[in-house]
């Protein structure tokens, strides 16, 4: 690592490469990239691709922590490459595709599993149909909004899946982001879809696979706190269970 007066610095990158056409397994490749200290890791990768090695594959789109495409393991931690600033990484930076997902190519991981799970939990408002468009906007009080707002911040970046050891050990687990989004709609005053979602998330593959490690919340770049959402789903599902089995005369 060298630094000059312009705030420029030669950054050593170790990038995990995998070419499905030629490689039996992934291996690290070292690059030395001239960077500005204020850059993020994504800037370094973009410079690398444009100037040093055009064969490197990775996903990115917005460069501003909104699209959720550039999730990768940076020194072993799931991070958005656009949110990981070079100034926070003084030494060699080791970059790998998100843990727990299969590698498509280089830093691109296979997201099919997450997308399928996301669909299963119906992450959209299921309305009772009584409120029509002619009636105008469907109003919500600030209190009703605040109940779910935090969980609505999810950008589907999958960092929580890369952090969750239970997902790594049991890939059937529906996982933090999908269950948090289900919870977000369950908490919405305009939604009546909770029973449908419970069929997916109140299952052994659903919230009950979670053991509350809490890593999902540690790595979430949008402070969604999926661990909180999942514990709340557990509490609500437990209340449901006791009501259904011991007090079935109580109308839910």
């Amino acid at each position, binding site marked *: 690592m060298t630094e000059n007066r312009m705030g420029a610095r030669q950054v050593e990158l170790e990038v995990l490469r995998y070419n499905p056409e030629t490689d039996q397994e992934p291996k690290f490749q070292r690059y030395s990239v001239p960077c500005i200290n204020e850059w993020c890791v994504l800037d370094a990768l973009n410079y690398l691709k444009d100037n040093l090695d055009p064969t490197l594959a990775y996903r990115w789109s917005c460069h501003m922590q909104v699209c959720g495409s550039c999730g990768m393991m940076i020194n072993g931690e799931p991070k958005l490459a656009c949110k990981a600033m070079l100034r926070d990484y003084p030494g060699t930076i080791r970059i790998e595709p998100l843990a727990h997902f299969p590698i498509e190519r280089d830093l691109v991981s296979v997201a099919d599993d997450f997308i399928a799970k996301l669909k299963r939990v119906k992450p959209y408002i299921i309305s009772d149909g009584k409120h029509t468009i002619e009636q105008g906007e469907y109003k919500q009080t600030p209190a009703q909004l605040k109940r779910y707002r935090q969980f609505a911040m999810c950008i589907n970046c999958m960092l929580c899946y890369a952090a969750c050891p239970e997902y790594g*050990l049991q890939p059937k687990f529906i996982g933090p982001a999908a269950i948090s989004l289900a919870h977000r709609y369950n908490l919405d005053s305009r939604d009546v879809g909770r029973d449908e979602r419970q*069929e997916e998330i109140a299952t*052994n*593959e*659903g919230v*009950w696979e979670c053991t509350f490690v809490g890593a999902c919340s540690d790595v979430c770049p949008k402070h969604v706190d999926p661990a909180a959402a999942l514990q709340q789903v557990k*509490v609500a*599902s*437990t209340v449901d*269970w006791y009501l259904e089995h011991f007090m079935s005369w109580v109308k839910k």
Partner: protein
Amino acid sequence: MAKSNKPIIWGTFAAGGEIVSLVMPVIILLTLLAATGHVPTVFSYETMHAFAAGWFGKLVLFVILFLSLWSQAHRLRITCFDFGLRADTLVAIVMYVLAAAGSIATVVFLARI
């Protein structure tokens, strides 16, 4: 996929976790004092027996033991899995049978006092 029946056990795990977190350290401290020779007065046979003979004492002892047994059994099951023991069903049966046996023993001992 059917809804899970795990809430039965999780209910006792959550309630047990709450009770154990609140009272277990001080109970351990009491028996630690006894273990180091500073036996608290409550551990004289007469006092302890009188406490466990009343309905309130019985209730307190039962709630603490019952919830702690089920709470630890559930957590031990998960701990076994996390350490790589993949025979989850077998582990679950062993743990929950132990917790059930402990619960029955608690009732029997309390009934004898």
